[in-house]
């Protein structure tokens, strides 16, 4: 018996049937990761721009730390967020442990550094082009942040999608914080983890293929939309 070919068949079958249970799991995966990406971008994009445009003592150290945080181990983040959200922890009263809200929080911690570090580079490159003109028009670097984020929007989607990719593929943090509760906090990745531990490798693999298909579709759609807009804009 070939597990991989079996998995392919099974994944096709899943995508054809769209079983409500599977849809719910996909829905939660997308909801958690998209929310985390939105929040992570709201924090990370201005943070990256700020680091690109300002000079202050300790800035180089900040950048090193930020770049290192792109590789934060999800399990460690999961554990830290678990302890923070635990009833005995500082934010225990929120009651977010073993809920999607807690999972979003863990993923925000994971992806904000990615969005910030990548957008810092993008904004720094754009600033080289724009600096004289913007200063001539009377902008200070701080006031230029919004302008550069808006004008760099096509390039910055790369940073946002890198964050999304990390979030949607990640299992270590959300399985600890979410608890992989059936019908409530089970996502694509935690379901894959569960099916692997149940030894149902074909089902796990099939879920993996479905996850990959979703990730590819979303990225392809966003890239196509971005490229079309970019061409129109001549950017």
């Amino acid at each position, binding site marked *: 018996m070939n597990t991989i070919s079996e998995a392919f068949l099974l994944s096709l079958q899943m995508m054809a049937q769209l079983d409500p249970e599977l849809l719910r799991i996909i829905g939660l995966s*997308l909801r958690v990761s*998209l929310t985390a990406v*939105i929040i992570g971008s709201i924090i990370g994009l201005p943070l990256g721009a700020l680091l690109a445009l300002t000079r202050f003592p300790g800035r180089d150290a900040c950048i090193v730390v930020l770049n290192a945080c792109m590789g934060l181990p999800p399990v460690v983040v999961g554990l830290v967020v678990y302890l923070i959200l*635990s*009833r005995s922890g500082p934010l225990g009263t929120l009651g977010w442990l073993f809920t999607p809200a807690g999972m979003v929080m863990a993923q925000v911690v994971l992806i904000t550094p990615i969005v910030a570090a990548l957008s810092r580079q993008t904004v720094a490159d754009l600033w080289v082009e724009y600096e004289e003109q913007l200063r001539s028009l009377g902008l200070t670097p701080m006031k230029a942040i919004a302008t550069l984020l808006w004008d760099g929007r096509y390039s910055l989607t790369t940073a946002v999608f890198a964050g999304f990719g990390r979030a949607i593929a990640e299992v270590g943090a959300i399985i600890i914080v979410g608890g*992989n509760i*059936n019908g*409530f906090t089970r996502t694509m990745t935690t379901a894959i983890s569960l099916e692997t*531990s149940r030894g149902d490798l074909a089902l796990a693999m099939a879920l993996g293929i479905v996850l990959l298909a979703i990730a590819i579709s979303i990225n392809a759609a966003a890239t196509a939309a971005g490229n079309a807009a970019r061409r129109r804009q001549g950017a």
Partner: protein
Amino acid sequence: MNRRHLLGLAAGFALALSSTPTLAQDKFIVVASTTSTEQSGLFGHILPAFTKKTGIQVRVVAQGTGQALKTGEQGNADVVFVHDPVAEQKFVDAGFGIDRRLVMYNDFVIVGPKSDPARVANTKDVVAAYKKIAAAKAPFASRGDSSGTHAAELRLWKEADIDVKTAGAGWYRETGSGMGPTLNTASGMNAYAFTDRGTWLSFKNRGDLVIAVQGDVRLFNQYGVMLVNPARHAHVKVAEGKAFMDWITSKEGQDAIATYKIEGEQLFFPNYKPGVNS
């Protein structure tokens, strides 16, 4: 893409996020339980009946027994449902849990490769089997994760008077993971492994592994349920938690447990007796 399109996109996201029906569910309890109960499919079989009857959703967080007890101790669950009587008693004695009740049992088995290098097949005596495995230095995959199953496995090694920490070099492998991953490892390297029958029966990736040892009374595996002590954690949902414990020890709950079968085999045997609790 202009600003208006982007706003539209953001609104779309917001809409997608707001449609979270599961989040609106307010009547629920969190049960910290073990991988053996969740992964064997038992909860999937019995919980819908309880939820239908009471309207209480049960959120099961499946962990090792050690971790599940810790989860309860920190107040992150309302009910703990595990299988390590010694640890459970300590948990209650320390004041972390109350109203412990015995619910059901299943049994452990030793699985191993068909070729049976340690010649333990058809041995009933689990201690004798352990001695043979050690003597043959046959590969043995242990969970090594302080779970209830791991604790039971270690107690039996102790009874066999084998110190796996020193004598196990080269053949005794700790995977440091749950039952399923440990069975995956055992299947991959044709090793013996100590597992609960439920996980084994629902496990698909068996490879060459079969049950080698079963039926010894020492392989008996008791499950207990207890409420996290509301005196320590005021947010514990006492009424809902008790409702769950009452139901699972009621005739209806006990029958639900008894009727769960995989490939025609019953996995768990209800054994609640009123008055027998601590």
